[in-house]
């Protein structure tokens, strides 16, 4: 029988750091703040943690970030590593934490990420270091492409093949901002309109400033333990039902097409493990580094037909209270984005929704949630399915 992680583990605590511009905390400090909040949320002691997983940091590029964080936090775990898969990292870390717990390598894993991208580096440095990290150093760098440029080429090809419109793209940041306004910790809350998005400064055509994610100081953390133990720790543990991954390329020049990515295979892996499909999801936290991305993720994850992600947003189906609430915390477009923490905050929001502590942005009858993280240029993909009960 195929080994499955379904129902074996659960998240028992979540924590977000202060978000936005937080100059009094380093990236490690932000991460520590989020970790403490997650530990307090779980009602656990520091001595309960015997595993730590983390990602990477451009602002504080320690070579062995996992070990550095253990030292900073005073932990001596028996299981620790740092993993670099860009924005896909947090969902992958959840899968790795679950696998380690199922294999007996750890019993209680702290998964944490954080960076001070807003105050720890200048905006110019943030833009150029990302371009250097995601552009091919030998064959793309001489041409002056940017990260928005990569996603702009995806948007342009999408418009060409499917006829999606500039206005449909603009619906994504608008509804996402509405959601962010209902979260007390969001970086950007001021309402925006379709016209604002279309009139905002051009960055890389067809994408404008308001089509692009934020650059924030932010950290997030969650604690994973076995399902059996979780029932004794948390009033409402959130169970991991499925996880899937697909890694297809690194640089955009090597993407086979710009209208199909490994999102689909990643999602299918998660659905298969969970024994569920898109119709079973009550909400989704999708990667939204740029407005085009959740549109194509909706399609590849089976929430609508190919080419219909733009009209899905334009029809209002992604709003809280509608068919499939997407990015109920405000996503990376409005809640926060700081490296791997963008996807991390999507996982945290999914957990918060499933335990019902989201106040005015609470999705009614939220029992099952999908989170998709992607890194590079839709290069590394990881999908997780979470639920308030084992299935």
């Amino acid at each position, binding site marked *: 029988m195929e080994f499955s992680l379904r129902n074996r583990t659960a998240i028992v605590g979540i924590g977000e750091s202060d978000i936005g511009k937080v100059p009094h905390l380093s990236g490690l400090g932000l991460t520590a703040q989020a970790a403490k909040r997650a530990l307090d949320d779980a009602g656990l002691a520091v001595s309960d943690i015997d595993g730590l997983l983390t990602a990477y940091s451009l602002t504080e590029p320690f070579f062995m970030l996992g070990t550095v964080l253990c030292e900073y936090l005073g932990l001596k775990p028996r299981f620790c590593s740092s993993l670099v898969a860009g924005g896909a990292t947090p969902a992958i870390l959840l899968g790795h934490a679950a696998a380690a717990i199922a294999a007996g390598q750890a019993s209680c894993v702290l998964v944490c990420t954080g960076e001070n991208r807003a105050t720890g580096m200048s905006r110019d440095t943030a833009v150029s270091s990302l371009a250097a990290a995601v552009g091919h150093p030998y064959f793309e760098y001489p041409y002056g492409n940017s990260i*928005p440029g990569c996603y702009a080429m995806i948007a*342009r090809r999408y418009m*060409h093949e499917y006829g999606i419109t500039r206005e449909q793209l603009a619906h994504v940041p608008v509804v996402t901002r509405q959601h962010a306004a209902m979260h007390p910790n969001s970086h950007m809350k001021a309402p925006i309109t379709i016209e604002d998005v279309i009139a905002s*400064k051009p960055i890389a055509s067809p994408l404008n400033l308001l089509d692009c994610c934020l650059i924030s100081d932010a950290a997030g953390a969650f604690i994973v333990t076995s399902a059996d133990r979780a029932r004794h720790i948390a009033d409402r543990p959130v169970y991991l039902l499925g996880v899937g991954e697909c890694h297809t390329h690194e640089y955009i020049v090597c993407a086979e097409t*710009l209208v199909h990515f490994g999102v689909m295979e990643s999602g299918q892996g998660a659905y298969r493990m969970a024994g569920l499909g898109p119709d079973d999801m009550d909400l989704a936290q999708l990667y939204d580094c740029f407005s085009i991305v959740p549109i194509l993720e909706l399609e590849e994850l089976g929430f609508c037909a190919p080419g219909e992600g733009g009209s899905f947003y334009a029809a209002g189906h992604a709003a809280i209270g509608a068919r499939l609430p997407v990015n109920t915390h405000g996503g990376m477009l409005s809640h926060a984005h700081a490296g791997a923490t963008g996807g991390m905050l999507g996982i945290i929001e999914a957990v918060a929704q499933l335990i019902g502590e989201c106040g005015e942005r609470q999705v009614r009858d939220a029992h099952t949630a999908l989170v998709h993280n992607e890194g590079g240029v839709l290069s590394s993909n990881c999908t997780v399915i979470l639920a308030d009960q084992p299935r």
Partner: protein
Amino acid sequence: MNLPVPALNADSKPFWEAARASRLLIKQCDACMRPFFPPRHLCPFCWSDKTLWIESRGTGTIYSYTVIHRAPAPEFSGRGPYVVALVDLAEGPRVMANIVGAGALEAAVGDRVKLCFEERGEGWKVPQFERSAS
């Protein structure tokens, strides 16, 4: 600021040295015969380590493109809005380049383009593309 010159490693050096002589080289597998880009030690399709350099005819079509308004590094800031494109070569592989020359900012998906070379410092040249008269 000067536009950047190419970076060399064992995979990229033959490509960029050929570009100095205004030639665009791509790799082809000598076992399965499929051309590929970027160049690398083995064929990404069949893992044969018998690969050849072949010269591209230098014609292609624009698969997708963007006009960069916010440059990623100071070297490019003085260039004004410029076009970055993915070009499908007639031989098959896809390359990244700028669309330069007359009407570059009016580039569109599906446009036919032809190879040209742009001089960077120290005798280096980078392959670029111009829109073909249709």
